[in-house]
């Protein structure tokens, strides 16, 4: 498992899962909260990745 995107997705999945289960009690709310958080992780990573693309350090 060397794909950075895959590792990021796995990491985001576990963090979102645990936060959703801690923060919400109803299964439906957990799914919504966790889904939003997971999508936020992926979207932020992709957007930040593209923003950094023109500035190699």
């Amino acid at each position: 498992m060397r794909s950075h995107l895959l590792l990021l997705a796995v990491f985001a999945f576990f963090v979102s899962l645990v936060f959703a289960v801690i923060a919400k009690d109803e299964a439906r709310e957990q799914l919504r909260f966790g889904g939003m958080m997971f999508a936020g992780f992926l979207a932020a990573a992709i957007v930040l990745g593209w923003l950094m693309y023109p500035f190699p350090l």
Partner: protein
Amino acid sequence: MRATTTTDETQSGTIVLLCLASWAIPGAGHLWLGRRAKGLIFLVALPVMFAIGLAIRGRLFPFDFSDPLVGLEALADLGIGVPYFIASALGYGAGDVRAVTYEYGNAFLIVAGLLNLLVVIDAYDVMMGRK
């Protein structure tokens, strides 16, 4: 008066035991309090996250506070409880700084420990009737 004090001491002891159990075995506190679904999710998710961190060559940091970040990372790693001691005893967690996944492995290990500490706080809140 004495009965009240004894009851308070018993409750304090139970709270300490609950927090220790919750730290040592992720999800144990929630299982103890009857929150089975939550407890089982923590029991599976956090050790799996920790194991992935080890599998992709993350490092269990030493308790070296001459470099504060290393010391703090060691404390975060310890947050996962018993899996940390099992991994240490079996010789896992040496880390390989040359591996492409080294930093990811560290992130998995550190965050698994920190999330387990959040789970301990959540179990404490549930026991105190705040949730």
